[in-house]
């Protein structure tokens, strides 16, 4: 068994070496101001096109690359697109302080409301969203384990105190389920961020044609649901339940 593990480690050594070299090149390009090169390299890394085995980066690594792409967009003067990259990064690494800081800075630059308004609802929402999906699942199981102990005690001994403890355990288990439920709910959506810089926002048309009637508009920085996609066009849900088509350049996919 130890021999098999050693062989596996040796076999996995060269894996990722090319990706790391590409990342170093992107970092150097960024720091000398060659943002286009850095962007193309990071986008390639995001797509896992290095040709290596297991080339697709982990969630944490994808979050880092998305963050760096946000910096590239910001340095190129596109604060709205930077908001999109940072938001996408935070969906993978929700406790990344750098990403939060840059997101708020980019939103301010883009004249958008802060992502975290600092009130009670925003704070609770940020707490719920601060775990990854895997972490939220383990937290739910931990809550269930605590509840199991309380239930066992109540079953074996009974009594008012243990019944109350069992109820308390139930509440704790439910609370621990909140992040997991949040992730489950989020997984059912495919949002896009409107990054149209004009004051009127992005026009939503009845059909994917430039001369189709404008049936609604979406403000810059607004997150709306993506339903379908065609070359150059994204079908989105219009507030009120209807659907319309928005030009792809104005929509930034947040699920990456």
């Amino acid at each position: 068994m130890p021999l098999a593990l050693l062989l596996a480690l040796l076999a996995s050594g060269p894996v990722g070496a090319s990706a790391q070299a590409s990342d170093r090149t992107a970092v150097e390009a960024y720091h000398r101001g060659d943002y286009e090169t850095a962007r193309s390299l990071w986008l390639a890394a995001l797509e896992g096109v290095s040709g290596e085995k297991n080339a697709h980066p982990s969630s944490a690594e994808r979050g880092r690359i998305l963050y760096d792409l946000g910096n590239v967009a910001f340095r190129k003067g596109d604060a709205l697109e930077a908001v999109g990259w940072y938001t996408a990064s935070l969906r993978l690494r929700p406790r990344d302080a750098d990403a939060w800081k840059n997101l708020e800075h980019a939103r301010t630059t883009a004249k958008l409301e802060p992502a975290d308004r600092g009130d009670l609802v925003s704070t609770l929402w940020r707490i719920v969203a601060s775990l990854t999906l895997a972490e939220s699942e383990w937290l739910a199981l931990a809550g269930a384990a605590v509840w199991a102990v309380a239930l066992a005690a109540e079953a074996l001994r009974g009594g008012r105190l243990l019944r109350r403890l069992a109820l308390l355990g139930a509440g704790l288990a439910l609370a621990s389920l909140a992040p997991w439920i949040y992730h489950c709910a989020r997984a059912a959506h495919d949002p896009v961020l409107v990054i149209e810089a004009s004051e009127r926002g992005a026009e939503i048309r009845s059909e994917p044609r430039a001369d189709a009637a404008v049936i609604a508009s979406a403000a810059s920085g607004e997150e709306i649901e993506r339903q379908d996609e065609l070359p150059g066009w994204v079908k989105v849900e219009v507030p009120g339940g209807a659907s319309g088509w928005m030009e792809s350049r104005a929509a930034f996919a947040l699920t990456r």
Partner: protein
Amino acid sequence: MSATRRISIVLLAFAAFAGRAGAQSPAVVRARLSTGVARLGSEVSLVVEVEGSQDSAIGDLPSVDGLRLGPVGIPSLGVFESIDGRRRVRTVKRTWVVPVVPEHAGSFTIPPITVTADGRNLSTPELALKVVEDLKGEDLGWFRIDAPREIYEGQPFTVELRFGYDSALGEIGEQINYINLSLPWLDQLPGLLELDLPAPASGAGWVEPVGLNSRGKTRAERLPPASENDRSFLLMRIRKRYLATRAGKLEFPTSHLEFGHVESGFFNFGSSEKHTFYKRFPAFAIDVLDQPEAGRPIDFSGAVGTLSARATLDHRDVDAGDSIKVSVEWTGEGNLEFFDPPDPSRMEAFKGFRLYGTNDRKTPERRVVIYDLSPISPDVAAIPPIPLTLFDPSKKAYASIATDAIPIRVRPLKKTSGITAETSRPEPGLDIRDIQTEPARERELPRPGGGTIVAALLGLTVLWFGLRTAVRRRGDPDAPLARARRAARRALRRDLAGARTASDQARALQRFLAARTGEPAPAWIGRDALAWARSDADDRREDRVEPWATGARGSARLPEEDARALAALMASLDERAWARSDEAIEAREIEGIAERLVRGGL
């Protein structure tokens, strides 16, 4: 005329004279005579004007002995627009011309005439008319009124009245001790604002009093004598400065100079005159022109005139952030009191400065604005030119005048972070954080999966229900006997801690055994523990012992050796209790046997 064209001039003029401008909203009535002095038999007209009224009518004419007034004809109607504050004002003007026929010579006063305007009764001012049989003095007097014949709206202009008489009549104050100017247009011309005059030259001589319309008094500046037609004249002058607030024609009626001698020998207008001479100056008009629309700069300041600009500094060698007082002085012939001074904070050239405030001083001769500027960067090398856009009537075009750039030296602040231009260096903490260069090393946390969570929650509830049901099949664990059984060892330790004799210890043991077996404590008094432990299940049913109180091995309640130890302990305690000393034994011995019994299934 568009509203915007007038705003810069008329707005300022009316704002500066808010009291007068504010009074423009209600109707205004004016009246003037075509001349203040008339020869007997000549025609005189009384002009009555009402402005700002949609409906006006002139009332009954007064009766003046020696004058025949009327009849009142049909008024002429005029409409013109002007800007009052920020509003475009459309004004209707009605003008009545009432003939006045003198019937004999003398001085007459035409009392106020009532005019009804929009239901309100207004009155004309009192007017004075002198009727003489002969206007002597045309050769002896000298009278000129100098005024421009054409001006632009917003342009200040001066009306200079020069007058005098033949020096052969003697020095002023000797034979000629009475001078009066009959100016029917004074204070009665619409669209004019009277401005302050520049200060006269020092050392000027003055003649006073000089009558105005036989009512007011003023003083006249003495001028050097002038020669005309081989005759010498003693001259004086009075100047009036006006600003035209709207385009149109300003009509000045005939004016007269009166001079003569009165008995009193002193300037006393109330005295009876003996000899009076008259010198006439004919009526004239000034055309007030619109400012041209073509070429009007966006940043037109409203200045009208031929001006020059000059800037001075209080000091030129400063540290960054220090204050520099920049005094900009505009001089020349123009509406210096009424234009908007330039605002450096809106100029690109002043982005290296902060403007802390301005101090604006206005006089007829000059306009001085002191700008409190602060260079915020040592890169600043000069106070840039400060431009002023104006309309130059002499060139009939818009122009821009500017001060010269003034070099300064700005030293950086020492031992501080320095004040720098806001646009050149962002404040700390206002930039994004740098990229993350290290690849994320943390391993992907394995996911238990949503199914696991759901299964765990469902299984948990099922297991709890099953366990609870199974436990309660043997009885309620929360019943008093069950609780007492669980608490028996703690109660035994507590009782033994307080026991002083063997009897106390025996009672504590009996309570322990009763709690563990579910029996009353007296049942254990004198009981044969060995026999009790050997009893079978049937005996337990007869004893109605709780199911959870049964032993675990076979049908016996206790193992044989545990039962023997219990019997020996009970015998020992009984023996001591019945002995005279009733001496207690070691509590640990009792607790040890109790622990052994519990482990043995008691």
